[in-house]
């Protein structure tokens, strides 16, 4: 497996979904190459020495804070993350906090960090952080949500009775995969904000930007199959005729 694929797979799908950034950009910003194999005859061509272990915390991989946290030479103690089969907590889900000062309170999932099995619940499990203080000025306190583990510290809420419940993934008659409350057998629907990104609330309500191709132009079918290569077709449309006979050549 190529390291780029490894890098890309290390950032979870739901962690980067809201940012709406292309994978290639995330990969490019995370990449830290320290040494590259010189070109030429090598027993291991195109080898790179680069950072393989990243520290994932509250900072997103494309931010400057992440780069600072993972600056060259910085190593951290290994974190054990419990493997999960299907990610089940999405932005906008109503959850109950099971631990801490806000135990028993319900809120909505605001942010997901899949690499650490973390979710942030809006307005719950907060700490106060002193910011901007110096010798003269004490600074101001900012209320910040702290991450919660999806495995033990939060629980989904059953929409029928608004109580915390265990759940499992099942298939409906139509073949859709749904979350079902094991206590009441009711389906816990996926929130509408699941496809929300920083650019749009839903795909249908996306506002076209000046640099975008219009949706009608994109969906217009102009392809007519013909027994031609791409180059032959372009030459024909531009009235270029090439009647030169190529020399006999050998490929090896």
């Amino acid at each position, binding site marked *: 497996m190529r390291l780029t694929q490894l890098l890309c797979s290390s950032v979870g799908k739901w962690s980067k979904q809201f940012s709406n950034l292309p994978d290639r*950009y995330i990969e490019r910003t995370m990449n830290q190459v320290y040494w590259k194999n010189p070109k030429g005859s090598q027993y291991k061509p195109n080898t790179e020495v680069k950072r393989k272990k990243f520290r994932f915390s509250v900072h997103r991989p494309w931010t400057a804070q992440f780069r600072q946290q993972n600056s060259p030479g910085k190593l951290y103690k290994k974190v*054990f993350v*419990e493997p999960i*089969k299907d990610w089940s907590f999405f932005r906008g889900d109503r959850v109950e906090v099971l631990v801490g000062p806000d135990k028993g309170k319900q809120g909505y999932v605001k942010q997901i960090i899949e690499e650490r099995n973390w979710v942030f619940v809006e307005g719950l499990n907060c700490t106060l952080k002193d910011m901007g203080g110096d010798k003269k000025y004490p600074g101001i306190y900012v209320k910040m949500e702290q991450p919660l583990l999806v495995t033990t510290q939060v629980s989904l809420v059953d929409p029928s009775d608004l109580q915390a419940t265990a759940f499992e993934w099942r298939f409906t008659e139509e073949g859709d995969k749904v979350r079902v409350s094991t206590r009441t057998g009711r389906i816990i629907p996926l929130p509408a904000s699941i496809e929300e990104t920083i650019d749009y609330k839903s795909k249908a309500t996306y506002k076209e930007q000046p640099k*975008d191709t219009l949706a009608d132009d994109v*969906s217009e079918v*102009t392809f007519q199959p013909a027994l031609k290569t*791409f180059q032959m077709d372009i030459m024909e449309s531009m009235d270029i005729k090439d009647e030169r006979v190529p020399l006999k050549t050998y490929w*090896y």
Partner: protein
Amino acid sequence: MAAFRNIKSITQISKLFNNAVSNRTVIPANTVLAIRNLSTTKCLGGLMEFFDDEKNWGVNEVKTGKSWSIDELRIKSNSDLHKLWFVLLKERNMLLTMEEESKEETRLFPSPERIDKVEVSMDNLEAVVKERNKAYFELETGETGERKVEEIMGPFGLPVQHEQEEYLIPKHMNAEWQKKHVHDVDNADVKKFVRLYKEKEMREKRQQQTRDFNHVIGLLKRFPDMDMEALKAKYPDVDIDKAKRSRKCRGHFVPK
């Protein structure tokens, strides 16, 4: 930006450039050539087309949609793809120019992911063109029509992927090629190297297996009620039952 201090000189150069182009298009008047040289594209700003719209200078972000997907490109005609390629190429040139200029001016380059979006679109477009050409050649000649890649023996006694190239003389007559690409690997030094290299590869593989095994033990120790299916899916090569029997796996409590 400082580059735009020289706007006057740049526009003058572009004026010259435009004149040169338009003079050339006027001369041939009879044949198809004349039609080809006559560009119907509106000339927007000459060399200033290498820079973004002035509204986007110094802003925090420039909103754009997603890149062209393969499915969206498959329904487009060859000439549409040809035109789109040059639109994308111009956009990429513009973005790279703006990135470089922002670096020089130590300013923020807004929305750098635009470069990736354009490059992904270009990759997808190229894939669609290759797909169409491949279909034609496979139907007509039974071959893909793409450059062949063969596995040959490299100088270190390890197989390497060799991309074939075009030559005017056959292989057996091309002494220069023979000298560069045919290696005598049947000697003691190469054999020793290959043996040691294989040994290193084996050792790395074994070390990785041990690391995975120990990691699974660490996971089992910390999360005894973990979903075993998920663990098996993540570490398919690890013998989980053996890991469970490990002394290191047990916590500091009396077993039930």
